[in-house]
């Protein structure tokens, strides 16, 4: 391996550049209307793309079975979020569901 500090510095600069890129560019130029509309779908799309694998993938494989307690606890959390619209309640119910289901 080459100099780790150089690797970290360049890696950090690239990471920063990507985070800064469009915040900077869209400050200079107008954002096209179509793109603006499309950007509203980033949060639901990205969050779901993070959530689904967390619930459905167990030990590196898809698991749609009732033995997958993260999936069950996740579904309970989704219903809780739908009804309560409250972050704290959703997390508490979801964690409690995970513990209770896991203790069987």
């Amino acid at each position: 391996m080459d100099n780790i500090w150089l690797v970290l510095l360049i890696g950090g600069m690239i990471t920063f550049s990507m985070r800064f890129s469009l915040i900077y560019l869209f400050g200079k130029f107008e954002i096209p209307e179509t793109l603006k509309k499309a950007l509203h779908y980033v949060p639901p799309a990205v969050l779901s793309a993070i959530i689904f694998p967390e619930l459905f993938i167990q030990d590196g494989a898809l698991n749609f079975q009732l033995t997958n307690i993260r999936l069950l606890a996740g579904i309970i959390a989704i219903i809780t979020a739908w009804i309560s619209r409250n972050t704290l309640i959703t997390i508490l119910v979801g964690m409690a569901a995970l513990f209770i289901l896991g203790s069987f």
Partner: protein
Amino acid sequence: MTESRKAFWDGVKAEIPLLIGVFPFGMIYGALALNAGLSTLASQMMSSIVFAGSAQFITTQLVSESAPGFVIILTIAVVNLRHMLYSASLAPYLKHLSTKWKVLLSYLLTDEAYAPSIIQYEKEGIKPFSHWFLLGAGLALWINWQISTALGIFLGASIPDDLQLDFALPLTFIAMVVPVLKKMPMVAAALSAGITALLAFSLPFKLGLILAALVGILVGTLLEKANG
């Protein structure tokens, strides 16, 4: 309390549940980095120089395999590609800020700072002090990440596995995304992205996440157009 302070603390508060989920990951990262042969200083500094969980885990793995430097750099770039999506998504809300602010907020722009902030901005719209919200969320996560890394380095990853604190992360994201799903195109965007993420989960370097997000954005936008 001034408006900027209030926005800042609202951001910190919104970040708290995510901190619980992230803390064990920080400790695991610290312990793994040391194990991989990185020095104490390099292990700790990676958390502030790169400041991106997934990229740091993969870097650690590559270091332990003695991968060449350019491979590590390239991998960090690909794993962090998704941040360009966050950058684009937040850009309209940060447009009016000075370059100094944009630099600071960009440095703090992680998955976990992006999520609560964009949800807040889409709900409340942009106000003169809204950027303090992102600063609060981002700074809270940054401090949490530095401390958890340090604890992982010095204590090893000593949080018991059966606590399953990492599950707080998807739970918080669920609590954030569900209230947003009011209209058909939003629901379709979420479902199509989720299903694509499952189909593509074996892709390396978080490429599945990017692909899934793009599919979700496309589906949502097309449906919105079709519905007029």
